[in-house]
């Protein structure tokens, strides 16, 4: 697979919307497929019919919800990049919380606060895992510090007969 880098900012919205829609559609097809299969009346034929019907009815809705989430998140993220002139984990966390809040706007203020909290925590977890992962993978490519290099050199000079690399 080719290397997949993210698009620059205004186009990132379209890209994220598409990615979220795809994720929702495929995930929704799996989830609702299993659910429809289990909830259908007995008989293999009926079970498969129930599965296709549920997939057809429910997974585009889930995909649409995902796409709205992705597009809104990306829009706020890009706006924050433009306003704050920097890209850091706080952008994602703020836009996650704001997206959760805005999309629950028609359900009243308590629902908005709850959704915003969940969105913020979710994005904070994702960003945190990303930072930890980067730190762990970066550790093995770290060049030796001056102290370590100096000690290694001294060890080699002290024992020239035993060459071990």
């Amino acid at each position, binding site marked *: 697979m080719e290397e997949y880098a993210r698009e620059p900012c205004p186009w990132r919205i379209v890209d994220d919307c598409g*990615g979220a829609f795809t994720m929702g559609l495929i995930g929704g097809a799996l989830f609702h497929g299993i659910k429809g299969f289990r909830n259908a009346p007995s008989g293999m034929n009926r079970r498969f019919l129930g599965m296709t019907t549920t997939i057809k009815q429910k997974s585009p809705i889930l995909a649409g919800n995902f796409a709205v989430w992705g597009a809104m998140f990306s829009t706020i993220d890009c706006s924050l990049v433009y306003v704050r002139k920097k890209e850091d984990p706080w952008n994602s966390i703020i836009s996650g919380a704001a997206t959760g809040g805005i999309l629950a706007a028609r359900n009243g203020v308590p629902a908005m606060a709850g959704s915003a909290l969940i969105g913020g925590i979710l994005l904070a977890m994702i960003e945190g895992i990303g930072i930890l992962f980067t730190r762990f993978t970066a550790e093995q490519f770290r060049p030796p510090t001056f102290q370590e290099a100096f000690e290694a050199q001294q060890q080699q000079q002290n024992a020239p007969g035993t060459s071990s690399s």
Partner: protein
Amino acid sequence: MDSFGNSKNLSDTHIQAKSPYLDFDPAYLPKTSQPEFIFPEGASKQRGRFELAFSQIGGSCMLGAAIGGAEGFYKGLRNTTLEGQTGKLRRTQLLNHIMKHGSATASTLGTIAVMYSSFGVLLQTTRGTDDDFNTLTAATATGMLFRSTGGLKKCGLGGVVGLGIASLYVLWNKRDSLSDFGSQYNPARRISD
């Protein structure tokens, strides 16, 4: 006169300033059939379908939301006027109409785009090339899959519709080379060039 003449000189004589490095006959350049770009070793020479897929899906989603939203706005206006609703009730009904139609159209168009992109990516990776055959096949398969639950007849009809749209798209993309193709067999055009 030097090639970097000042502005007064230029306005008098109407000669365009040219860099001496650009002022030569391109016929002296060696002609090669290879493209004049540098590619990394082993990399494919164009952006594949996978890179375009998410943008296409997102774009068709947003297009569907816009079209459906407009349609819902129109229908909402008409229905609320017919039922004589006003004020807060009318506003909520309008919003409901816009949301309902917008999300329905967006998810339909997005689903079609996801199907088309996945078929396209699959064909591109299995065949190793990206050409018009992939476009036509992916579109036909998309139409058939999208209508596959409605019976064999509807499935075939969907395939035909997909094939038709894809053929129009391919023809539109190929219109330049097709007009050249025609001029080969047209004696009147041939004499002129």
